[in-house]
């Protein structure tokens, strides 16, 4: 008890990241740690700087959220050299960090893609909303790429690299345009959203255009997306990442580490859960 833990992320503005950090803080309170949360608003240079600050300020552990430690290898190495354990949540395995707790992003992508493809009968046209700059999101894209190869009857007719922040409005405007570029029933059958927010934007556009026959699936289990699934519109599914579980696994392992032990493995996965109307027990007219 009483240890100082620095939680650092460049993406606190992202809903999922925020959720993980809140869950981690709750767990940390149980273990009576002092938690300092730092956000660098997308700035990787500042992110590296804050990791350095945490190292010199005598933190007992550093928790990085939603980043791959390779992006700041030198700073992570320095933390390790200074004897400060680094763990990542929703990150990636790294030689200098002791643990990464994540959902397997590839599995997330696979699960969602399979569900979505099944829903349209493994046939038809899809559009993709993506963001390769995020390593986790990029894994999901790879899962889609593989699934597209395996399903030649599914064609990707358009894609959009989402702007962050402003992702909802940006995705909405892009979907507006895609709908017009692909008019007629059946021109687009499904929207593949690398995470829920672009899906929510796409849903707005589809609603406004009154287009039928398009389904959307995303990833994260964003509460708003779940609402939309319940509402019986175009949004039909999302894969809930166990953000809370990830955070509590990470906190539990960190507790062991701080007590002088070591983590069960250098990478641990939280379970993922597909959320659909069915799983929510909703029947639509």
């Amino acid at each position: 008890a009483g240890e100082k833990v620095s939680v650092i992320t460049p993406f606190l503005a992202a809903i999922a990241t925020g959720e993980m950090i809140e869950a981690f803080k709750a767990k940390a309170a149980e273990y009576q740690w002092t938690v300092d949360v730092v956000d660098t608003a997308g700035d990787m240079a500042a992110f590296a700087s804050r990791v350095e600050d945490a190292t010199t300020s005598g933190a007992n552990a550093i928790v990085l959220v939603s980043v791959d430690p390779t992006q700041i290898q030198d700073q992570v190495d320095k933390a390790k050299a200074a004897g400060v354990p680094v763990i990542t949540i929703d990150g990636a395995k790294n030689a200098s960090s002791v643990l990464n707790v994540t959902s397997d992003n590839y599995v997330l992508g696979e699960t969602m893609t399979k569900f979505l493809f099944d829903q349209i009968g493994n046939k038809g046209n899809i559009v993709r909303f993506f963001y390769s700059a995020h390593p986790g999101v990029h894994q999901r894209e790879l899962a889609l790429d593989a699934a597209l190869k395996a399903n030649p009857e599914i064609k990707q007719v358009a894609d959009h690299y989402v702007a962050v922040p402003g992702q909802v409005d940006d995705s909405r405007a892009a979907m507006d345009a895609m709908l017009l570029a692909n008019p007629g029933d059946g021109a687009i059958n499904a929207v593949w959203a690398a995470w829920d927010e672009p899906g929510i934007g796409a849903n707005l556009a589809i609603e406004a255009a009154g287009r039928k026959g398009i389904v959307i699936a995303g990833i994260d289990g964003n509460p708003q997306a779940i609402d939309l699934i319940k509402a019986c519109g175009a949004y039909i599914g999302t894969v809930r990442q166990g953000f809370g579980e990830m955070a509590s696994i990470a906190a539990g392992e960190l507790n062991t580490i701080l007590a002088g032990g070591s983590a069960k493995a250098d990478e641990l996965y939280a379970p993922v859960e597909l959320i659909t109307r069915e799983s929510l027990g909703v029947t639509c007219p």
Partner: protein
Amino acid sequence: MTRTNLNRFGTLIAFVLLCIGFSIAAPAAFASPANVFNLVQQMATLAIVATAATLVMTISEFDLSVGFSASLAAVICFVLFGQGYDVWLAVPAALLVGIVGGAANGVLVARFGIPSFVATLALGTILSGFAFGLSGGQSLFQSVPDGFKSLARGDVFGIPVLGFWIVAVLGVAAFVLTQTEFGRRLRAIGGNAQAARLAGLPIVRDVIVTFAIAGGLSALAGLLLASRLGSVQHTMGEPLLLPAYAAVFIGTTASPTGAPTVAGTLLGVAITGVMVNGMTIVGVEPFVQKIMTGVIILVAVLLRRVGRAR
């Protein structure tokens, strides 16, 4: 006079060429009524924030807090909804916060002589801190009254509601800037602040009022965006900043004296809006889109020189 008109036409011609180009590339999709409808909707928030920027640039200042004000207003509105408050209370409260924040910018600039770039960036950062704190970093979307959603959705006689907002806000702003005493004073302050003071203009007051209006317009834009999307993120207004000033500056290249005008700003907003929309319809690769965006803007502002002597 002729030269002036040619200059003015230059950027307009670029815009028309852009529209023609996309209409040829994607006749059914781009030139359709539905897309025009979309375009109007998509441009509305940017047009309003860019109008705020136009006003502030008329007095030769910058307001970097526009995007932050938009976010904060939207967050406040949704937080109030969450606590069960009505549209009639939440919306005015959110607008008021925008106006007060803007007025504070004005006070820092006019009374304390802080460069507007620093004052508005610092104040904007403070506002964004509040937006962050109030929203808890979460996306807000619950218990939004239907009355609020209708602010920015749907249409009246086939014209999108946001189109009316554009006409109303930009129309009033253009009228104020070109026809009223207040507008003249703003141009005078922007042209030569020392001379304006010596001519007896109430500079401090006018500067504060201008920033307050800019804050109010930014808040309005934030609310319309929130209404359109049905959800609020605490950083949602930030991407408006650079495009808004880009639109104003593109607009200045269409004005004979290089001063910002509402009409020029609208042209700037329209060029950027059509460009992004058209390229998405045509299906241009993301990185090519960026390159094309830059190229088209440069061509548009260079075209105005076609009519130039020398």
